[in-house]
């Protein structure tokens, strides 16, 4: 039994993945409670992939479905460039993730587990493959575990896109007009959860809801993995109790000043001003700033970086990552980043560009099959709120003081300019 204190998920995580015997020594054998979804309900576990959907509801939805074949999918795709939590978790405790998947498989009555890791993360995929082989020798509980390596695009990690890959070899999101809906492989229903959620399920199945609630807030109990990057000294993955003030989290990564701004939740997340650095890190407190924990990403914008330029870089990358299925996303996102370019480069008339930017953001919002365009719009609109001064400066036509020494640099470079075909 591990202690109630931190870290839980990254408990005794070393440089090598824990083998099966080490795993048993640390966490003990897995005894799955008979009514796991009730325990999960009591624990109040919410999905850690970004949407924070209550896990027990998802489990009950799939468990009550009457299809003959069911699947459990572990989503460790992590297409978000600023996020490293899933690969840290899987390469530290692959067996913990598999435990959670086995527990959920028993609860919903699934006989197949698919673990999805991006093709580019070969090291992580190798860790998981070895763990799966160890399972097959020791303790697979009659469940087939398969490793899948879809190509690691941003969109491939979206749950419907991931299921589409498993079903039909295409990483394109599906349109679901009625929500919540059950995703399907063939006729079988699928339960998709983030790898971190699975690991949390494994811990709750072992130690119970009471133990899980001993950290975190009442509404958002438990711990969360946070990937901190940007202008910090040590970009790291940390495990924090939900409700910890942001300042403490930043201090753990070696950043003690007041930052200029923080990007929370990921590239489709929200910018918040650096003065809100004492806000507790949980969805209730962050909702006041129209932000959320999201996928557990914190990107720090240092004092000498230009918010508009960074927002432009991110939006351009996100526009390129669109699956190009829906018109408003395929054409709208490049147009959005084009407006931002006009604003940051002061090409043309910046005031018109700003007006156009707002109009375009409003038009695009909510009109894609998945939430990809909505996330970009949310990020851009929050940038307009937070970087008001920067934008005013740009709109007056002055050259940006900071654009040259931006230290953000987590946006992967587009390999060819022509990638942005629809621009």
């Amino acid at each position, binding site marked *: 039994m591990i202690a109630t204190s931190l870290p839980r998920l990254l408990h005794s995580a070393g440089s090598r993945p824990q083998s099966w015997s080490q795993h048993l020594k640390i966490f003990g054998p897995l005894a799955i409670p008979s009514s796991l979804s009730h325990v999960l309900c009591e624990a109040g576990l919410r999905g850690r992939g970004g949407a924070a959907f209550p896990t027990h509801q998802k489990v009950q939805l799939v468990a009550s479905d009457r299809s003959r074949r069911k699947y459990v999918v572990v989503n460790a795709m992590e297409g978000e460039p600023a996020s490293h939590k899933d690969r840290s978790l899987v390469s530290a405790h692959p067996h913990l993730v598999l435990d959670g998947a086995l527990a959920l498989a028993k609860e919903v009555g699934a006989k197949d587990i698919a673990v999805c890791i991006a093709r580019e993360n070969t090291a992580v995929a190798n860790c998981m493959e070895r763990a799966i082989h160890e399972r097959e020798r020791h303790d697979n509980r009659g469940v087939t575990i398969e490793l899948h390596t879809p190509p690691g695009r941003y969109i491939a990690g979206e749950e419907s896109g991931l299921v589409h890959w498993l079903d039909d070899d295409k990483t394109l999101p599906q349109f679901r007009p009625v929500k919540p809906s059950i995703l399907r492989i063939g006729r079988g229903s699928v339960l998709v959860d983030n790898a971190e959620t699975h690991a949390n399920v494994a811990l709750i199945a072992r130690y119970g809801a009471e133990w899980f609630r001993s950290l975190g807030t009442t509404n958002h109990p438990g711990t969360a993995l946070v990937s901190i990057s940007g202008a910090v000294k040590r970009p790291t993955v940390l495990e924090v109790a939900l409700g910890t003030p942001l300042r403490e989290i930043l201090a753990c990564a070696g950043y003690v000043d007041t930052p200029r701004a923080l990007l929370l939740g990921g590239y489709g997340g929200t910018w918040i001003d650096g003065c809100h650095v004492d806000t507790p890190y949980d969805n209730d407190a962050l909702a006041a700033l129209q932000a959320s924990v999201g996928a557990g990403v914190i990107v720090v914008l240092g004092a000498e970086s230009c918010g508009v330029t960074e927002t432009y870089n991110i939006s351009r990358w996100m526009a390129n990552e669109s699956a190009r299925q829906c018109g408003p996303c395929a*054409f709208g996102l490049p147009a959005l980043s084009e407006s931002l370019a006009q604003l940051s480069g002061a090409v043309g008339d910046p005031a018109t560009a700003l007006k156009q930017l707002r109009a375009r953001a409003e038009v695009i919002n909510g*009109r894609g*099959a998945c939430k990809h365009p909505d996330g970009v719009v949310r990020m851009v609109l929050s940038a307009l709120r937070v970087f008001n001064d920067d934008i005013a400066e740009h709109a007056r036509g002055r050259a940006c003081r900071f654009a040259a020494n931006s230290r953000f640099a987590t946006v992967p470079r587009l390999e060819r300019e022509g990638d942005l075909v629809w621009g």
Partner: protein
Amino acid sequence: MGVRRRTESLRLRVDPIMCDGYGHCRELAPELVTLDEWGYPILSEQTFVATRKDLIHSAQLAVRGCPRQALWLEQFGPRN
């Protein structure tokens, strides 16, 4: 139409993946559809009551006239 008698309100909806921006819906149901700058339809979010026969008629024209079959009429019963 027994089904529609129990319908209180309707809404025109679009499958954004199917939609290729032909723009027929704008021609057929101009009171329900506007186009964005790239030619894709923006459907009015508001539901309309089932007694508006004119709106139902043009919505049905739009649904039938869509070359990609991307539109459908969503019906809401009295409960919602």
